[in-house]
């Protein structure tokens, strides 16, 4: 039996609220997809910052948005070769 007490006695969530939630998610994704320039810039700037700390090949880097339940998470994949020695140059 997979009917919860909420489903039996409670009110179902308003469909307008469901519509709003779904739209917010899909539009976030649409805006990112359309705005390739945004993702490219984010990719480059992240790489710039992280290059101070790690050694990696830029081609292996992936930055993407992934849906996780009701929200999006930014996933940045930077397979690094090694840490820079942070004491160098100080």
């Amino acid at each position, binding site marked *: 039996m997979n009917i919860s007490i909420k489903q039996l006695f409670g009110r179902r969530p308003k469909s*307008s609220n469901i519509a709003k939630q779904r739209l917010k998610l*899909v*539009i976030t994704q649409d805006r990112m997809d359309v*705005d390739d320039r945004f993702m490219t810039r984010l990719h480059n700037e992240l790489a710039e910052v992280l290059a101070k700390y790690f050694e990696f090949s830029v081609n292996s880097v992936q930055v993407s948005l992934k849906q996780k339940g009701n929200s999006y998470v930014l996933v940045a994949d930077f397979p690094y070769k090694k840490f820079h020695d942070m004491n160098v140059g100080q």
Partner: protein
Amino acid sequence: MGKVIVVTSGKGGVGKTTSTANLGTALALLGKTVAVVDADVGLRNLDIVMGLESRIVYTSMDVIEKQCELSKALVKDRRVDGLMLLAASQKNNKDDIQPAQMKAICDKLRTTHDFVLVDSPAGIERGFSNASAGADEAIVVTTPDVSAIRDADRIIGLLQNERIEPINLILNRFSPELVGNGSMMDQADVLDILNIDLIGIVPEDSGVITSTNRGIPLVYEDTSPGSQAYMRIARRLTGQRIPIPDLEHKGLLTNIVNWFTRKR
């Protein structure tokens, strides 16, 4: 120098032509000089919605091909002073016109009219580029449903890329009853998603359909809710500050009244 405003949407059938016809007429009723331009080449409708279809001789295509002067291609609406229509060619398609040619027409019209309203075709292709080419400002029309709003967001992004500003939203076919019972998003929901300014809410009104049948824009009839909504939007376009009435509230009240008066 007049303003050029493109009336657009992502999804089709949400009320662009209805809005162009009614706002054009409403602005003329307020004493402004107005040119309404049908940019839906190949699928023209503004002429029939306005009831001017029998008087079209020339179209914007004839002007572009220099078959006639722009002033000669404009059809004067005889019911109100200061309103003219430039029809779209029905036998051509959207690729037969260049954005620069539409812009040239709009730039010429704005020297003689306070407002130039361009009725855009649906979609994000060439028809949209043509319609928005000469625009200073935009009105995006949407209905309160998921697909229309998603597509509206896409169009808003494109308009922003073109530096067209302001971009104002018309929320069309709004139903206070449906909002009241939770089956339709209200204006706050829609604005939260789209993040642009609301210039008006037009309720679902059967008068829109009957007035279109007759070819007499709804704003000539001053009693219907749709007509009043369009008149208020027109006033806002002229710079008057008129608050947007809370239609949702009325819906709630109606619901309460209905609840007390319902047959048990």
